[in-house]
C-alpha cells in the first residue's frame, strides 16, 4: 500500500509540491491526497481536496503544522508527503478568504490598524 502511494506522488506534475515542502507563512491549496489510511482521518479533521491551509511551522524532514479554518493540525513528514499542494499567492484584501486561512503573520492586523503610528509600510 505504501509503495503504491509513493508512485502516485511521482506521477503528479513536477511543479506541484507536497505539504512536506511547505514553508512557514505561506498558504497552500490541497490538490490531492493519496488514497491510504491517513486520508480518511484527514477528511475527518477537515482537510480535503480544494481546502486551503496556512503553514505555521515546518521542520525539515520532520512534521508540518498547518492551520485550516480555526484548527491547527500537526502532520508527520511521511503523511505530509502524500498531500499534493499548490502555493496560493496572498490576496490583497481579506475578502473571500476562508476564515483564519492565509492571514499572514499574526501582527499584520495590528500593523494595519496602527498604520498611522508606523507610517507607510512597504510590502
Amino acid at each position: 500500500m505504501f509503495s503504491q502511494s509513493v508512485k502516485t506522488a511521482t506521477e503528479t506534475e513536477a511543479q506541484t509540491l507536497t505539504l512536506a515542502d511547505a514553508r512557514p507563512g505561506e498558504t497552500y491549496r490541497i490538490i490531492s491526497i493519496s488514497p491510504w489510511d491517513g486520508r480518511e482521518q484527514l477528511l475527518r479533521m477537515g482537510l480535503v481536496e480544494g481546502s486551503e491551509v496556512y503553514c505555521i511551522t515546518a521542520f525539515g524532514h520532520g512534521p508540518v503544522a498547518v492551520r485550516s479554518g480555526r484548527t491547527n493540525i500537526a502532520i508527520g513528514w511521511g503523511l505530509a508527503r502524500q498531500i499534493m499542494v499548490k502555493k496560493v499567492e496572498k490576496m490583497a484584501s481579506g475578502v473571500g478568504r476562508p476564515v483564519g486561512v492565509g492571514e499572514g503573520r499574526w501582527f499584520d492586523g495590528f500593523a494595519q490598524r496602527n498604520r498611522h503610528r508606523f507610517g507607510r509600510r512597504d510590502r
Partner: protein
Amino acid sequence: MVLPKETATVSAAETGKKSTSAAVPAGVAPASATKSTTSPPTITSAPGSTRLIALAGNPNCGKSALFNRLTGLYVNVSNFPGTTVDISKGSWLGAELIDTPGVYGVGSYSDEERIARDSLLQADVVINVVNATTLERDLFLTLQLLDMGVPMVIALNMMDEAEHLGIKLDIPMLAHLTGVPVVPIVAIAGRGIDELTKAVASPKIGISDAQAIKAVQEERRRLAAEAQETGRIADPGRIADPGRISQGMLLLLAEGDEEIAQRLGVPPGEHRELIYTQRRRRADRLAAKVIKGGGEQKLGQILGEWTARPIVGIPVLLLVLWGLYWFIGVVVAQIVVEYTEGILFTEYYEPFVRQLMATFLSAENFVYKLLAGEFGLLTMTVTYLFGLLLPLVAGFYLVLSIMEDSGYLPRVALLTDKILNRLGLNGRAVIPMILGLGCVTMATFTTRVLASKRERTIALALLGIAIPCSAQLGVIAVLVTPLGLAAVAFYVAIILLIYGLIGVTLNRMLPGRSSDLLLDLPPLRLPQPANILKKTASRVSAFLAEAAPIFAVGVLLVAVLQETGILEAIQRAVGPLTAGWLQLPPESAQAFVMGLVRRDFGAAGLYSLAMTAHQKLVASITITLFVPCIASMLVLFKERGVRDALAIFLGSIFVAIGTGGLVSRLIYLIGWNLP
C-alpha cells in the same frame, strides 16, 4: 420522560441492533459489548431499566467536563486530545450516561474509535458535544451521527471562548440544517445545562445526507439478497431480517467498517470514499452558513502557534524542562522532603511510634521488628510513603496537570516528532512517555492511543525499561541532585542514551513501518486552578491506593526475608554482581529485591544505604533501568501477553545491570571525582 415520535419508530431497529452485538462472540466483542446483555432492548422497555445516553464528540471538545458537570463525578479533564481512552459511566436523570473517547469520526481506525463506536451503536440518545470554536472540523462527526440516524441533541460547547474570539454562530440555522436541537453551553462553568437537560428529553433524528441514505438502502438490499441466498446472516435465528438492522450499523457497513461487516457476516461495503468526501463538503457548507463572524487571533492562538515553531518552541521546551527540574528536583525533593521526611517523620513520628510500641513489646520481639524495626510497617513504610513519596508524587502531578490543561503537551509532541521517528514512534508517543514519568502503570494504558501494534511494543519497552516513574524519580532526585548539576546531567544523558538505543534497535528489528503524526494542536489556555487541584488530588489518591498496599506487602516480605536470613543469602549469592560488577555495597542487593516489588520502593531502599557519591550515581542509573514494578507488569501481561511482558522484564534486568557496571567503570576511566 416524554418520548418523541421519532424514537418510537427506531425501537424496532434498536432491537435488531442490540441482538446483533449480543450475537458477537465474547472474544471478538470489546469490553463495552457486555453492556448489551444488561441494557434494555428498546427505549420503550419496562420501567426500572435504564436508558443509555452517550456523549460523543471530537477529542478535546469538553465531553469529560460536561460528563463531570452532569453526573457530579470526576473524570480527568485536560487540554489534550485523547485524555479519555476508556468509557466512564455515571447516572443522570435516571438514565445511564457514558463518556466516550473523543473521535473525529465513527469507525474502527483505532481502539478509541472502536470503543466509541460500540457505545454509540447501543445508545438510546446521543449528546453530540461540539466545540464552537472549531465548528468546521467538529461537524464531520455530527453529520456522521445524523447519517447514522440516532436520536440526538447537539451541545455547542465553549461558547464563552467562541465569544471571546469574536466568532458569531447562527444557532437556529444550525438546528434547521441538522434537524436536531442545538443547545449552547459552557460545560466547565455549567452554563446552559438546564436547557440541555430539557432538550435531551426530546431528542430528534436529524437530517441524513441523501448520498448516505442511498448507500444505507443499498446495503440493506445487499443484506436482504445475501440473506435470501444463504438463508441466514451471521448468527442463525437472531438476525434473519435485514430490515431490523439499524441505520447506524448499515451506514458503518457501507463505509467499509470491517468489524461491523464481520459481525453481520458479509463483506464490507465500498462507499467510504464517496460518503466521506460528500460529508466533508456538507460540513464545510454548513459551517459557512452557520459561522457569521470571522473570529480573530487571540493571545492563546498566537502563543500556541509560536510555541509550535522551533525557534521559540525549543527554548520554551528547555525552559519548561528546567522549570520541571527546579520544582521537582530542588523545591520538592530537597526543601519539602527535607522537612517532611527529615524532620516531621524521622524526628517526630518514628520515635513516637517506637516509644509507643516499646511499651507493649520488647525491641527483640519479631512483631516489634515487623512493625517498628528497620523495615517497620509503621515506621519505614509510613515515612517513605507519606514523608518521601507523597510530596514528590503530588509535586509531579501538579506540574503535569498544569502542562496538560494549558494545552502545551501537543506542542511537545510536535517538537519531538522528528526525534521519536528515529525510535519508530511519532510525536503522539510523547504523551505516554510523559505520563510514564508520573506512573508507568497508568501510562501503559495510554499507549492505546498509538496507532499500530509496532508502536505500542516500542513504547511499552521504553516505558518498562527506561522511563522512571515519579515516585522513583523523586527518590533518585533526592539521591542525585546533591551531587551537583554535572551528576544530574550525567544521569539524564545515560538514561536518554539507553532510551535511544532501545528505540533505535527495536525500530530496526521490528517489521513494518510506524504511522505518522496527525494531531490536533489546541489553543493554549490558562489552566483553571480548581481543575488542576482536583486532578492532582484524584491522581495522588489513586497513587496512594495503588502504592500503599503493595508497598506494605513489600516491606513485610523484606522484613521476613531479613528475619529468616534469606536476605543475607541473596546478598551473598548476588555479591559478584552487586559488589563485583556494579561496585556497590553488598546491602544494595536488598534494594534490588525491593525494586522487584515496586520501582520507587527499590530506589527508596538505596536511599537508606551509606554510599559514596560514585556509588549513588551508579545505583541510581541501575535502579532506574531495573524491572518495572509488579503493578505495571500485571498491566503489561494483560495488554500484551506473557511473551512480551517477560521479554521486557528480562531485558530490563540485563540492560540495568549491564549499564550500571559499564557506567561505574566509565566514571573511573574518565577520572571524574564526584564530591
